[in-house]
């Protein structure tokens, strides 16, 4: 199995503060990984460091994607390599419709013009699967969307852009039971044996709808334990106290 992401002894700061303190994580094609941890453990720093968010700084260690060091890549170049990240709080961008944005982004990702008719049809099919109001694609990107609509819009973007690795940062937080089911359905639609998913979450609700290969416990900037889905169950029952 081909290695997609490999992080070695990663140290990273959020602002001035050291958050990741020697994190190791390897993800191969076809795998679904879950990183769980209490608040402040470094979950968001993990996702943002991979994506070269300017608010975070990698101070030591390495991040490789398909064997290539991507630490010095700009965010757009990382995206074009085939990594996607869904945001906890997606930004609202006025002045561009969701459909036009998706078309523009798809064009940038593939460096090919997008055939609008087929593209729109595909987007509409995805939206139907995600129980999204079809009118949303005509509205400006995330502007006036409810929290749930924004999260579904992130999953829609993942399906449209079709990355090799999708990092879902707290995608399940703030969603009701039905929305969580829908988001899980989107992830199942996306998943195949050539790509991978990294789910970052602080609770276990989404995991009951998904087939997960690895669960990692992140505490104080390090992965302290790795297991299978049974580890998530254990956390659900006992919390993180044991690992702190």
């Amino acid at each position, binding site marked *: 199995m081909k290695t997609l992401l490999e992080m070695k002894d990663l140290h990273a700061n959020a602002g001035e503060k050291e958050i990741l303190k020697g994190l190791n994580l390897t993800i191969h094609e076809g795998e679904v990984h879950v990183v769980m941890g209490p608040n402040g453990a470094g979950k968001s720093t993990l996702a943002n460091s991979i994506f070269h968010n*300017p608010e975070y700084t990698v101070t030591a260690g390495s991040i490789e994607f398909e064997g290539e060091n991507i630490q010095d890549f700009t965010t757009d170049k990382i995206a074009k390599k085939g990594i996607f990240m869904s945001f906890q709080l997606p930004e609202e961008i006025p*002045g561009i419709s969701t459909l*036009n*944005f998706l078309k523009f982004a798809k064009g940038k990702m593939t460096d090919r013009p997008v055939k609008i008719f087929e593209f729109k049809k595909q987007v509409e099919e995805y939206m139907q699967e995600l129980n999204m109001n079809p009118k949303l694609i005509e509205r400006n990107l995330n502007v006036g969307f409810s929290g749930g609509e924004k999260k579904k819009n992130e999953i829609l973007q993942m399906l449209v852009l079709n990355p090799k690795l999708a990092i879902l940062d707290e995608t399940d937080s703030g969603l009701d039971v039905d929305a969580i089911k829908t988001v899980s359905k989107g992830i199942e639609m996306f998943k195949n044996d050539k790509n991978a998913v990294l789910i970052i979450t602080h609770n276990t609700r989404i995991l009951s709808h998904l087939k997960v290969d690895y669960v990692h416990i992140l505490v104080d900037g390090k992965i302290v334990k790795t297991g299978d889905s049974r580890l998530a169950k254990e956390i659900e029952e006992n919390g993180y106290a044991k690992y702190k």
Partner: protein
Amino acid sequence: MSKIQVEDINRNIYDIKNEDEYAFKIQKGLNREIVEEISRQKNDPEWMKEIRLKALETYNSLELPTWGPDLSELKMDEIATYVKPKSKLNTSWDDVPEEIKNTFDTLGIPEAERKSLAGVGAQYDSEVVYHSMKEDLLKQGVIYTDMETAVREYPEIVKNYFMKCVPVNDHKFVALHAAVWSGGSFVYVPKGVKVDIPLQSYFRLNSPESGQFEHTLIIVDEGASLHFIEGCSAPKYNKVNLHAGCVELYVKDNAYLRYSTIENWSKNMMNLNTKKAIVGKNAQIDWVTGSFGSKVSMLYPMSILNGEGAKTEYTGITFAGKGQNLDTGFKVIHNAPNTSSVVNSKSISKEGGACTYRALVRIAENAKQSKCSVSCESLMLDDNSRSDTIPVNDIQTDEVEFSHEAKIGKISDKEIFYLMSRGLSEEDAKAMIVRGFAYPISKELPVEYAVEMNNLINMELKGAIG
């Protein structure tokens, strides 16, 4: 929505400059002989010559403004005030000289006419070189011609209105304008006539070290309506050019006028333009303005709401890049009861560019039950850029509704990061955010101008990021 999706950019089309060929070029600087020479060249009737000469006296007696942007680079002695291109006024596009035609063709004029306009006028340097209008409008009595023709053929109308809305002593550059004005458009829409497709004029300044002083006079008679579009551009020269146009708009009782402008002068232009409208009972003037080019702009369109129930809306956007100081805004005078004004202004500055929103709202004592709402928003793309808001509000009655909202902000790094995570480069991301910011304004522009504006935004941002 599709109109904000234009990505192909070609800055070259604005920078084409033709050999400085002209039939006649007046000596540099300004004095009585020069003004008389201009008047002779233009075959002015005696009354117009007198207006010019009186204006020259006023010009000499007035000082340069002591507020606003620095104008010291402007040396009046070095500016040839009048340049006559090698072309007579044509009514067939085919008759316009090849070189001038190519310039306008590249800029999409009169392609725009073929598509969606009722009439087009094109001015090259100081003279109008092309004019045409649709047949049915002629039959309804609509007059659309260049200013010189209007002076000759409609002297009674011009005498009544010329420099009456904008008084000659308004400021130094108005006086200069009145002394040396050349070219421009004259429009008269008779009572009750609705011109439902826009009229357009396009001004192009090609000669270096020269001035453009076109005069636009529009009278929309009672119950009539019109949309007038004005576009301006010039190639870049190292010498400073001066644009001191004057726009006088008369919107009679129950009439409607929409006046749209894109000013995209080259970055060496001093754009000191004066625009005013007098608005009658239950009449309305709407201004839509995009200011992009020029080194310095001082531009404050004014609506004078003289009739009860008169209305005005101002929608404007200003984009100042490196080395630009764009001082723009809107003035409104509420002179009658139940009048209303709505102002929506946005500005964008980057790489040390400065945008100032300078505005005046005056509500006279008799203007009871009037309403005024002002919103201005500024977006700065970096820490070097400047944005100021200088509103003056003079409200002489309590029985009004007045609101003023100002927001100044920096472009959001979070938004840029979000868009970049979707594969957009930093400049694409910024351009998308800026277009989004500008969208409430650009959607008010005629489509081809909205496209041009988005091209300009993209073009500006291409240069911004290394």
